[in-house]
């Protein structure tokens, strides 16, 4: 089947988020994704390519591990003094002529942004990438109030036209082929049918968005780092869209989670050396913009958003997840993410970091996410700020099970395992019965014993004897000789 004949991927409704009461079923969504095997392989390969580029970039920096240690320590220090750094940042920013707003939750953030636009008489907003505004569902809020919202990052624009949520925090349209993009642009931008050349498609998007940049009367950007010492807001992009928007519009709004603070100007070096190398393998993004104060005739606003972050900060097992700098390396390396796609997580942030941050928002609704992992630890190994992602995933599993959200089958397995492993005689008995019975049963039936794993795998033929029996036969007296050397 050629790429353009592939069926569209299943996409969850309303920018990807299921209804309030609906629980995310990652396994079911992943099974749907996997129904198209060729496309799953392609997705897997695309993400792994990013992981390989990251490895090359990291290996080229001799002090890579020292940088990770520094980044982790700076973030942990900042988070453990966050109230002080928030106040220091606010003071500097105000002195710089930046208007500072505080939002306890998503609703308040959206209200503040709309209030700024309303007061300035702005109705045409260009946005550069901001996962926070995805988290807050800003676009529908503003659109319902008559604001035209244009996402200008190419990947974000593609998915905005398709009315889909991003599937990756760095590459929002990574789930789409160039043929998909061609079809979308044909429908919305009037490009030639069947056009699938990335250069031509990007050129069409550039022309389409150039007019929007020039017509915009407000720009909204995310924030990668906010410097408490100087009040600077740092934004990293490759396309130049954040800068075009912010330089042209009379109003610039920067939305940031309160965890984006770092103490000193010099600390930027540590994080910028890690960020792009971890994300895409580039030594640095094309543009690293430092917004210090408004230009003459311009308003510069920053919105500091909590929306659950202070709650996460108070969780002893999980506060370190707030160190995240949103590079996406844990997504690229995750064997589950690569083969289930970002939409299967049903959360704003997918992949390992999403599965660690999101259950804290609604444990029942996102109960499946900590289980969307093999616990292989690859995420932890690549994380530039050394978040212990696999340990946190395991810890969430325990909390999910304790709260009774694990589901009947999972709970049954956990309880049965506890029963058998806690009783050596029962373990020996179960092993003996299993070895005999599985050898007698036809393969088609025996592999059911492996549960969902058996769907794509055969069980190995059970051995004639257990290891314990073999050891007794072949190492008589072994335990005695160890005791008396």
């Amino acid at each position: 089947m050629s790429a353009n004949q592939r069926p569209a991927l299943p996409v969850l409704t309303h920018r990807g988020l299921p209804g309030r009461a609906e629980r995310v079923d990652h396994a079911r969504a992943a099974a749907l994704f996997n129904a198209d095997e060729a496309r799953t392989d392609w997705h897997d390969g695309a993400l792994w390519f990013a992981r390989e580029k990251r490895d090359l970039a990291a290996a080229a920096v001799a002090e890579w591990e020292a940088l990770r240690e520094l980044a982790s320590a700076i973030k942990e220090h900042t988070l453990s003094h966050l109230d002080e750094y928030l106040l220091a940042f606010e003071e500097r920013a105000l002195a710089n002529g930046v208007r500072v707003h505080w939002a306890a939750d998503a609703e308040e953030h959206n209200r503040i942004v709309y209030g700024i636009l309303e007061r300035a008489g702005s109705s045409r907003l260009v946005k550069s990438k901001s996962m926070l505004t995805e988290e807050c569902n800003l676009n529908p809020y503003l659109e319902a109030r008559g604001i035209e919202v244009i996402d200008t990052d190419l990947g974000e624009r593609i998915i905005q036209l398709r009315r889909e949520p991003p599937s990756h925090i760095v590459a929002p349209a990574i789930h789409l082929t160039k043929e998909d993009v061609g079809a979308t642009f044909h429908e919305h931008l009037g490009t030639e049918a069947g056009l699938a050349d990335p250069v031509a498609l990007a050129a069409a998007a550039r022309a389409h968005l150039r007019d929007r940049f020039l017509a915009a009367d407000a720009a909204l950007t995310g924030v990668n780092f906010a410097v408490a010492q100087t009040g600077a807001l740092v934004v990293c992009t490759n396309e130049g869209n954040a800068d075009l928007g912010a330089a042209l519009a009379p109003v610039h709004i920067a939305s940031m989670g309160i965890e984006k603070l770092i103490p000193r100007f010099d600390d930027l070096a540590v994080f910028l050396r890690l960020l792009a190398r971890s994300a895409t393998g580039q030594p640095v993004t094309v543009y690293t913009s430092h917004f210090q104060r408004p230009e003459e005739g311009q308003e510069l606003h920053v919105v500091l958003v909590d929306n659950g972050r202070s709650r996460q900060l108070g969780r002893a097992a999980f506060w370190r997840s707030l160190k995240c700098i949103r590079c996406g390396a844990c997504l690229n390396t995750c064997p589950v993410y690569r083969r289930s796609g970002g939409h299967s997580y049903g959360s704003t942030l997918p992949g390992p970091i999403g599965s660690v941050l999101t259950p804290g928002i609604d444990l029942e609704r996102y109960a499946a996410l900590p289980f969307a992992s093999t616990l292989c630890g690859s995420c932890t190994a690549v994380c530039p700020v050394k978040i212990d992602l696999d340990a946190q995933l395991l810890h969430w599993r325990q909390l999910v099970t304790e709260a009774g959200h694990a589901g009947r089958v999972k709970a049954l397995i956990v309880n049965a395992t506890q029963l058998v492993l806690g009783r050596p005689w029962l373990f020996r008995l179960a092993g003996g019965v299993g070895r005999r019975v599985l050898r007698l049963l036809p393969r088609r039936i025996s592999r059911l014993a492996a549960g969902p794993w058996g769907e794509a795998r055969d069980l190995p033929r059970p051995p004639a004897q257990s290891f314990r029996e073999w050891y007794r036969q072949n190492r008589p007296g072994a335990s005695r000789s160890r005791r008396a050397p």
Partner: protein
Amino acid sequence: MTARESILQAVRAARPAATPLPDVRAAAGGFPPAAGDVVARFREVARATGVTVLEGARREAADLVARAYPDASRIVSVSTHLAGTVPVESASRELADIDLFVCEAVLGVAENGAVWLPASRLGRRAAAFLAPDVVVLLDRAAVVADLHQAYERLDLAAESFGVFVAGPSKTADIEQSLVIGAHGPKSLTLILFGAVGS
């Protein structure tokens, strides 16, 4: 209670045990120096990001630019070594169809090929992002090894804005295919001037 107070209160209540702030300057001072000439490394990395690197003297800038961009007629220049044809302070609409933007960088960074352009070197900063082609002049003596050295030298206090630029704008959002020239400039040319070897 205002959102500000409630957030600060919640953060204070949630604060994990205090950990120390590491001394980044001391740590960076102990990193092994990269081998070879810093300008040569800068040139190599910049080229890898899609930059055209030209060598010359500062006074030759106008000739070099004319040769590199012979068709450019609407030029905004913030460099004293090259006369522009469109005033730096033009309105955005005027800047939207310029052919070329020329400016001078404060420093370059060898490890990532980036140049530092603060607001005072950019004029109206929109021009640097609207122009299809950009030329940046850089003194070879102003190339530093890495971002640690760069941030030690930078002073943003007097500026409204500053940006590290590493190459022409680009995107890989369509099937990870690298496309040069996303929303910003489609080409970036660096002119290295000053004494060779330092």
